[in-house]
């Protein structure tokens, strides 16, 4: 039995255990332990890979194996699952009113399906894993019912459209190369004429892009992720969308190859396929990030960010240099920790308050200081500022864009980051800063079972920010696995001659600077003392608890007014137009079947048929 077999067995056992014991009071703890075991098993496995079982069906060979890329994504998957499950193991589960067995099973099924996807050893297996992941995700998204069901259904449409595009690409590729194996596909793609190759790239892009929520396939994601029960949302937001990145890395980079993409020109323009993908990624960074800015629900705000961050990852990956692709991949793990932290905090607030409406919160720092700390670390990381890990990966992406001579993409990335900073400020301001509402006076800090995981992931994001070398080794192996140039790293960061970064220094200087500042302040006799929120006045009047002086409605009104008209609703319009068009055709089809005098159509059809024959 290979290590991968053991891992699959453990994952399947988790699913089985949840199917049987999911209703048990301590099922969450058991699940967390089992995810922990899986994680441990993964760490005992060689990073460079392991094989697992294979079987044959209808003359096709299906095989599963891990390489370093799979391993890298599996670490993120299992890590996120572990913390998400932990988060939901204690008080959250006690308060959960839905169907517990179903929920726990759905989570375990997602993990299992994703491991299967990551282990796919050929294109057919990839599709099987892809579908398994999609449907497991659907189950997890839909099980809350109500709005979640509608959102999941919308997700399903996009996921199925993607899956079908993927399937179309696979069968075409199979017929061109005679096999589903990666080797054959690589050879076929290398020899393929530009036209069909473009078609395949578009199909693969649609297929994987639907899960990664690339523009214009992104409309489903925010609601689907946000309406899922808390640990599920954490898991989905942290890692599930990244499966699209995994598959894109596998196919676009691993099978087609960056040089081939660079050589493939868009007809009649000076652009190449690489540019197209990069610009799609850049637009995915910018537009959803500014959509996030408009959100008034903390969950949706974070989910919209998730879409944008996926764009960063793809952007880095598709640049293809050692630095850029490492940045893109590193962002996967950094972002997973960051997003998990943020979502855990937000759902912690929801657990205490009952909602996450940014217009009806504020000042919670006084009641939930540790959550505030976690959120603070999280948004620093999300905005890409030192000393958190988000800074490292984004810095790598930016540097690679500049090194690669792509100023406009760099500009787009910067604009995206600007939007991120604005919106995370909205998040922390409207949640934790400002005036505490009277009805929230009696709130408690989030329960320990939820607090520990969020602080743990925040710590992870901090540690990997200070010492990115801890995980850059994984990234380097993953790069090697898909034939990318490998990043040269140190414990503190990057050691390349053209762009080097040592976070140990950066953080050291930063904290030293803070220390100097503190020394100056206290040395100059500065004093601090706590002030109550209501120990304040405005316009000459003292404030009382009943007076609202914390304005959170219509945040960034001026900015929204400025940019609102640019992109508002165009994608909805597109989606709606497709839906209406289909609906119209469907009405016609229904009319054909409902007509009670069928023979007229028969006659018309037979005339047409005979005419066809005769002519």
């Amino acid at each position, binding site marked *: 039995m290979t290590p991968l077999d053991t891992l699959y067995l453990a994952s399947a056992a988790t699913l089985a255990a949840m199917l049987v014991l999911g209703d048990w009071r301590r099922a969450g703890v058991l699940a967390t332990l089992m995810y922990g075991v899986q994680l441990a098993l993964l760490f005992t496995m060689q990073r460079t890979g392991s094989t697992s079982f294979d*079987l*044959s*069906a*209808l*003359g096709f060979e299906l095989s599963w194996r891990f390489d370093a890329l799979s391993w890298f994504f599996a670490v993120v998957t299992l890590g996120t699952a572990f913390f998400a499950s932990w988060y939901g193991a204690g008080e959250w589960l006690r308060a959960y009113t839905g169907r517990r067995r179903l929920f726990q099973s759905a989570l375990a099924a997602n993990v299992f399906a994703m491991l299967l996807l990551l282990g796919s050893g050929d294109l057919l297996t990839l*599709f*099987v894993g892809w*579908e*398994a992941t999609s*449907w497991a995700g*659907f189950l997890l998204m*839909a099980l809350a*019912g*109500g709005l979640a*069901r509608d959102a*999941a*259904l919308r997700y*399903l*449409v996009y996921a*199925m*459209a993607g899956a*079908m*595009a993927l*399937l*179309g690409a696979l*069968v*075409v590729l*199979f*017929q061109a190369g005679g096999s589903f194996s990666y080797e054959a596909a690589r050879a076929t793609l290398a020899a393929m004429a530009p036209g069909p190759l473009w078609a395949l790239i578009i199909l693969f892009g649609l297929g994987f892009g639907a899960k990664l929520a690339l523009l214009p396939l992104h409309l489903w994601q925010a609601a689907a992720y946000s309406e899922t029960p808390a640990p599920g949302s954490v898991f989905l937001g942290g890692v599930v969308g990244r499966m699209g990145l995994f598959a894109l890395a596998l196919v676009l980079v691993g099978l087609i190859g960056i040089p081939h993409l660079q050589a493939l020109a868009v007809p009649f323009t000076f652009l190449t396929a690489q540019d197209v993908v990069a610009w799609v990624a850049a637009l995915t960074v910018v537009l959803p990030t500014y959509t996030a800015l408009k959100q008034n629900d903390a969950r949706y705000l974070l989910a919209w960010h998730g879409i944008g961050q996926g764009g960063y990852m793809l952007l880095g990956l598709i640049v293809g240099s050692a630095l850029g692709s490492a940045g893109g991949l590193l962002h996967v793990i950094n972002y997973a920790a960051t997003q998990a932290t943020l979502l855990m905090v937000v759902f912690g607030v929801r657990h205490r308050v009952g909602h996450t409406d940014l217009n009806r919160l504020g000042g919670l720092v006084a009641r939930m200081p540790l959550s505030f700390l976690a959120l603070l670390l999280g948004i620093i990381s999300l905005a890409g500022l030192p000393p958190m890990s988000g800074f490292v990966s984004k810095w790598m992406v930016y540097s690679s864009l500049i090194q690669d001579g792509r100023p406009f993409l760099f500009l787009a990335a910067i604009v995206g980051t600007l939007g991120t900073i604005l919106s995370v400020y909205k998040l922390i301001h409207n949640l934790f800063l400002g005036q505490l509402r009277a009805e929230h006076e009696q709130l408690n800090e989030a329960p320990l079972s939820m607090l520990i995981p969020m602080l743990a992931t925040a710590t992870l994001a901090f540690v990997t920010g200070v010492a990115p070398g801890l995980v850059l080794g994984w990234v380097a192996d993953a790069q090697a696995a898909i034939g990318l140039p490998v990043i040269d790293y140190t414990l503190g960061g990057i050691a390349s001659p053209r762009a080097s970064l040592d976070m140990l220094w950066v953080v050291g200087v930063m904290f030293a600077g803070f220390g100097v500042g503190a020394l100056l302040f206290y040395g100059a006799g500065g004093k601090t003392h706590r002030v109550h929120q209501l120990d304040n006045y405005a316009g000459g009047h003292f404030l009382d608890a009943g007076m609202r002086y914390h304005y959170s409605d219509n945040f960034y009104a001026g900015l929204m007014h400025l940019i609102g008209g640019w992109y508002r609703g165009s994608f909805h319009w597109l989606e709606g137009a497709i839906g209406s068009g*289909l*609906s119209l*055709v*469907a*009405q016609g*089809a*229904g009319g*054909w*079947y*409902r*007509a*009670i005098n*069928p*023979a007229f*159509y*028969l006659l018309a*059809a*037979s005339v047409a*048929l*005979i005419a*066809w*024959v*005769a002519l």
Partner: protein
Amino acid sequence: MNALVLPVVLPLLTAFLLQPAGRLSAALARWAGPAVLLVCAGLLVQIALLTGGEPVTAAIGGFAPPVGIVFYADALALLMAIAVPVSALLLWPRAEAGEAGVRQSALMLLLVGSGTGMALSGDLFNLYVFYELLTVASFGLASATGTGRAYVATVRYVLVSGFGSLIALAGIALLYAQTGSLNLAQLADLAPERLANPLGLAAFACLLIGFGVKAELFPVNNWVPDLYACAGKPISALLAGVVSKLAVLVLLRLTVLVFDSPEAREMLMVLGLAGLVTGELAAWRARDLPRLLAYSSIGQLGLLFVALSLPGPAGLAAALAVALHHLLVKPALFMLAERWHGSLDKLAGAGRASPLAAGLFTLFALSLVGVPPLPGFWAKLLVLLELARGAGPFDLTALALVLAVTVVEAHYLFRLVGILYSPGEFRDRHSPRALAVAGLGGAVLVAAMLTLPAVSDALAGLASQAADTAAYRTLTLGGGL
């Protein structure tokens, strides 16, 4: 193998004698039908075991073909022939008291006899006769619910069927005028010389329209939704399940043996695509489950015709996979619709009321959409691979349409699954028999999934045997008795 005729004749004999027998004893009239079906199924299984899947023929009346009528039983024909009595047994109409019940039983027996005949016969006009018998028997069964709308739906069905059969008859006339023969094997011999012309194609078009009525082929399928909505669900299940497959089998034999030309395949593909797209889109808008299933059945059969238009044993294997999958799934779904017949929106809560039924529905829906590793996925994959192999503009359009329509299918099926599992007032539960039939379908589906390699080998064997026209001709015209 003269015994081949027995599974066709015995049900007819029983049907003739059922009414007189009903005067003697009600119990006899009630149980004779199922008993004879059991015997027929047993006989067919025994024949299959004896021959081991090798094709055999039986010359009716001892007249060697092509002068006489011949029954030809290869593995595929036997499989379909076995499916007929077995489906009929599972979907036997609920016993009505008195004469109506006896009549219904007699019609069921006639349907089984003719269905078996359609699976086995190797003579075009004989196929037409059995087809007509099946049609007339199904008229009676479809109207047996006795509601006004069932009568109207049946009248529509009669009119379309009548139109179809007269077109088929014209097609037979064209064919006969060209070749002077009705035996499929001889037609296959003569086809390259006599039928490779517009008249031959016209004959094919006519036969396609004629036999297409039962197979829910595009222009002649608009009797389907109302009839399935108004007839008894077991009858709908029977018609959508095995009966449509018998008509498909006839068309399969025709395309493989006689009309193996690109033009004929093109025609099949275009009509199949039209059915696929209109059916699935209409299902998308359907507001009640029976009609949803009827429309989706049209769509599925459209896919089947697309698969049927693909050349070679691989294309045939794809078509058979789709056909067998649909044969398994659709009757089971119709049995579930027996209780879930109202507006879709009113089904909320049904998942709680009967979890087994909802679970089965979800399983079937997943398989219909084509989610790996369920059998439906492999069937669809085979079709898609063959379409991609063709790689002509027609094939690629078909490929794109099949894929696009799958998304629509997933949407309406899982919208319904979502409704089933949402909280609601629906409390109706299924009859044990409906659940048993659906459960059996589900069990076979899962078993097929678990034994996929064996199933796929068997399928490839079936397809290569059915595609072997040389063997068909030598065995039939070589005068094997």
